[in-house]
């Protein structure tokens, strides 16, 4: 499993590089933004198996968060992605879109490249857990679709994210 080793190594190296630099995970999750596929938590009634609602109801989170200009997947992110991979294993026909996002403190083109890094870091980790990478489509929104619209550390922490969204058919 070359992919697995490489991913783990990259993660280890980048984590080392970040050192004590505090991340990230916001205290409260942002409201689902419109237009990027988030549909919010399940109501618990009439949930279609394999749907976005089902996904949200059965994973610890649909998103992981990153430090400023970082794209490493740390232990907390790994736990989130592991819960996502378990759901994906149970729903083998489902394909997902992995959205990479950046906060507003970068220039536009660079932030698209940064969002690509983040979405691919999440994709690679899911692949290392045995999810077929062909089931995962990646898209970077850069700073175009902030989940939190403030201009402060709390908002920026919520926006540096990779979000897994079920591709509904």
């Amino acid at each position: 499993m070359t992919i697995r080793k490489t991913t783990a190594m990259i993660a280890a190296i980048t984590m080392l590089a970040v050192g004590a630099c505090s991340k990230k995970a916001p205290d409260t999750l942002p409201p689902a933004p419109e237009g990027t596929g988030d549909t919010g938590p399940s109501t618990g009634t009439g949930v279609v198996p394999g749907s976005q609602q089902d996904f949200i109801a059965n994973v610890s989170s649909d998103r992981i968060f990153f430090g400023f200009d970082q794209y490493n997947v740390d232990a907390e992110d790994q736990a989130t992605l592991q819960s996502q991979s378990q759901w994906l294993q149970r729903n083998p026909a489902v394909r997902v879109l992995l959205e990479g996002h950046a906060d507003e403190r970068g220039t536009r083109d660079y932030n698209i490249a940064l969002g690509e890094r983040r979405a691919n870091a999440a994709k690679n980790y899911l692949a290392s857990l045995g999810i077929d990478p062909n089931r995962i489509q990646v898209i970077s929104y850069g700073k175009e679709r902030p989940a939190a619209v403030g201009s402060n550390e709390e908002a920026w922490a919520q926006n540096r994210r990779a979000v897994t969204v079920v591709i509904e058919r």
Partner: protein
Amino acid sequence: MTFRPISLSLALLLTAAPVLAQETAAPVAPPATVQTEPRETIEGQLSQERTVIAIPALATPAVTTVAGLRTDSLGRQIAEVIAADLERSGLYAPLGPGSVRAITMPEVTAPRFADWQARNAENVVHGFVRTNSTGGLIVGCYLYDTQLGSELVRQGFEIQPGDWRRAAHKCADAIYSRLSGEAPFFDSRVAYIAESGPKGNRIKRLAIMDSDGGNHRFITNGQALAISPRFSPDYKKIVYVSYLNNRVRVFIYDVANGSQKLVTESGNATFAPRWSPDGTQILYSMAVGGNTDIYRISANGGTPVRLTNNAGIDVGGSFSPDGKKIVFESDRSGGQQIYTMNIDGSNQQRISFGGGRAATPEWSPRGDLIAFTRMGGGEFRVGVMTPSGGGVRLLTNSWQDEAPTWSPNGRVIQFFRTSPGREGKSSLWQVDLTGVNLRRLPTPQDGSDPSWGPVLP
């Protein structure tokens, strides 16, 4: 041909004074004194040494109507556009048609200089508007030195009625060039992104307009996110990034027929497109497995050439005006910095050093400077540096000023400014190289990602 310069002769003027006949072919004598040296320092004061220019409404030999436009109304509107152009340059204090008396047709070639001296005008612009026999317009444009009583500019344009703003810009360009010694820039166009809607779900549409915001037109309908447009040098095409069908891809939009095609077929995200100065090549950035590098491809398609190849993000890019070098940004050293390379990707060298990060480099059409976004202290500012990275000067100071684009003559920079917070908006601005003459551009909605094209032919 809908817009062509013509030499002004007696026949075109119809009512001109006989004395004109001897002058038509005479070369224009240079003025004895021109008080308008471009300021080179950021400490310069906008108010000092602005040349007063009187710009009365253009005369008309007879009030006629073509395409619903009256020649007398056009005379006033053209004078207003000329005055606004010259005022925006920061070098002149125009007295527009709202503040000076109208002129008669004979005055166009025989100004009453004493009248304009009495208004403290060092220069006066005269002109006329008349219809021709084919449903078009003829616009004459003259610039005089009031003290010397000499003619500095004489230009005529035969145009379609819908192009009257271009005649005004061409006249303003001729005046600006004659008085400042700089190349013209008013008669040019801008592609940009019109923005609306809440910050978390902005609608972003490709739009185009004249350099002063006139003749505005939306191109895309906003259903798919559109970002980072660039006008081709001949204004016939626009490259931009569309999020159509949940993909990030560079399209080439054909302005004349509204069709568009992909720059290259790829399963990977392609973005940050740029034209070569001759319009034959396009740079774009492509992310493969999360890593972004810069590629170059013929504007007609074919096989792309990979120009960068390392683990950092390499993105954007801008050709030198001679087409031999490319300036681009990379975070290979840690944060974003600016690098140059040859167009085959060889000889990659970092040129930006010092505090903060440097991004979005754009090579001046004059070749002497590179405009960029400096990030530091939680702010973005627009600055310039030489192609070797020296002489850094920051021209703006706000929360986020991003993505400079050059005027055709390399003397003015447009960029977009974003305000912070939940209600944060973006708007288009321009600043000259002094950093003093800062203006907001009028747009019907919010705006970002301006791309300024060359002077129209």
